[in-house]
């Protein structure tokens, strides 16, 4: 097995948490986000779909959810940027024995709000939400969602029946939104006891009823931190915006080469700015015309502009997955994305120009930004 290389971040250094099909990597950037050193691989041979940094209460704890096809998966954490990881004796995220389900993949890790520093959430496949109230020591399934009457009708998408998005409303402490492929978006307003579908206006191209209550294949949803009524949604065919916290969704695929794609990122302070990476179609999940283009809107989806400076525009048939793009909280905002061919690109100027952060990594599944 490869011996991992380690990075030694200082307080305030920008970080990238990179999950790949063959392990996890941690990249440390300089203050300008131009130069990066990459540590890893951690959990070599394991698929790492989910990583997160928990910086609450003075922690600098990185979580990862590596999964082995042989030995299964569980959550591990490090407080020293990968030098040592916890290795739980028993699986910490697992279904109750009477649930009739077996954990296949950990898809998302979300630290709770600042006022609940011991709370974390975790989205998994098959689609379920888990919560920890003791800083990740023990986990339990959110019964209200698991017992939802819609659940037997949810269907697996190409990546499996996964709960891949967890959004904690910044103004409403009891409101959580999740998204499932293929089930759609759901919201609870009572902390998880009751859930309702929130897909009005979102198309289900693959169903006879194109606008069902649920069953959409939502690929990723992001919410504006300073204006939480505003969200953007990248669908399996379809690009949407809501200005009423998801009660209704409006098609905003104006001038993009395709409205099929996986990731979507939103600006940390400008709710009108978002980034996507369109793919040609569900049958050919590669960048259209062999051009790797990120598209950016600065007017909430009324128009989109291609961003190509520094990105390959010839025979670049790349794929960026749903968690493969992330936006940091710095100013100007940094945008980073990884491809299934193992290339990691970054922009420190909101997408105006791009450079290669790393190449030759295993297929990249997820990219998260953080600050050490």
């Amino acid at each position, binding site marked *: 097995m490869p011996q991992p290389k380690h990075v030694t971040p200082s307080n305030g250094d920008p970080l990238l948490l990179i999950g790949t099909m063959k392990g996890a990597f941690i990249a440390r950037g300089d203050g300008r986000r131009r130069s990066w050193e990459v540590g890893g691989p951690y959990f070599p041979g394991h698929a790492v779909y989910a990583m997160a940094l928990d910086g609450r209460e003075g922690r600098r704890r990185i979580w990862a959810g590596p999964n082995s096809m*042989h030995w299964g998966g569980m959550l591990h954490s490090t407080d020293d940027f990968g030098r040592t990881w916890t290795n739980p004796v*028993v*699986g910490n995220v697992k279904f109750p024995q009477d649930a*009739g389900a077996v954990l296949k993949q950990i898809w998302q890790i979300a630290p709770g709000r600042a006022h609940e520093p011991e709370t974390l959430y975790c989205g998994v496949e098959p689609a379920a939400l888990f919560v920890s109230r003791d800083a990740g020591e023990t986990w339990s399934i959110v019964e209200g969602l698991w017992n939802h009457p819609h659940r037997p009708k949810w269907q697996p998408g190409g990546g499996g029946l996964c709960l891949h998005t967890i959004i904690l409303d910044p103004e409403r402490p009891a409101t959580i939104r999740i998204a499932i492929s293929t089930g759609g978006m759901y919201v609870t307003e009572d902390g998880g006891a009751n859930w309702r579908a929130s897909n009005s206006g979102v198309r289900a191209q693959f169903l006879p009823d194109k606008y069902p209550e649920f069953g959409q294949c939502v690929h990723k949803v992001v919410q504006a931190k300073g204006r939480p009524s505003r969200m953007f949604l990248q669908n399996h065919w379809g690009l949407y915006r809501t200005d009423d916290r998801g009660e209704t969704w409006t098609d905003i695929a104006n001038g993009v080469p395709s409205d099929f794609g996986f990731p979507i990122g939103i600006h940390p302070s400008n709710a009108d700015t978002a980034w996507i990476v369109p793919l040609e179609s569900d049958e050919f999940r590669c960048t259209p015309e062999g051009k790797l283009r990120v598209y950016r809107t600065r007017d909430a989806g009324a128009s989109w502009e291609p961003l190509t400076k520094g990105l390959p525009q010839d025979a670049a048939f790349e794929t960026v997955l749903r968690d493969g793009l992330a936006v940091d909280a710095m100013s100007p905002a940094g945008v980073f994305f990884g491809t299934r061919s193992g290339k990691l690109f970054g922009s420190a100027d909101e997408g105006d120009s791009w450079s290669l952060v790393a190449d030759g990594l295993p297929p990249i599944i997820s990219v998260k930004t953080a600050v050490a």
Partner: protein
Amino acid sequence: MAVLFIIPGALRALTGGRDEVTIDGAAGSLSHALSQLWTAYPALRDRVMTEAGDIRPHINVFVDGANARDIGGLAAPVGADAEVVLLPAVSGGCCGRPSAWARGSLPFRSHRRHASRRRRGPC
């Protein structure tokens, strides 16, 4: 008499580095034998078994050379001096070359000697 368990390389960090473990009183069914192994080395259980109580699909457990799935699964009989081998299947993205034993080209009687020489598992 004790049941001999052969531990794959990927799990030896959970058995204090041991590649072989012998446990008294483990004879009976495979379910019973494994439960005794979990008692001695609790971190092994959730790596080998799902939370539903089944052997993980890409793990093979051999009892005296026979794949447990062919001889009754967890109900398979385990003799008082049996050899129980835990192995990752060739399927599932194994990162190394499968061992001669895993490929089935080495008879199980040779395995005890083979395993004791082989300090690194296939993964």
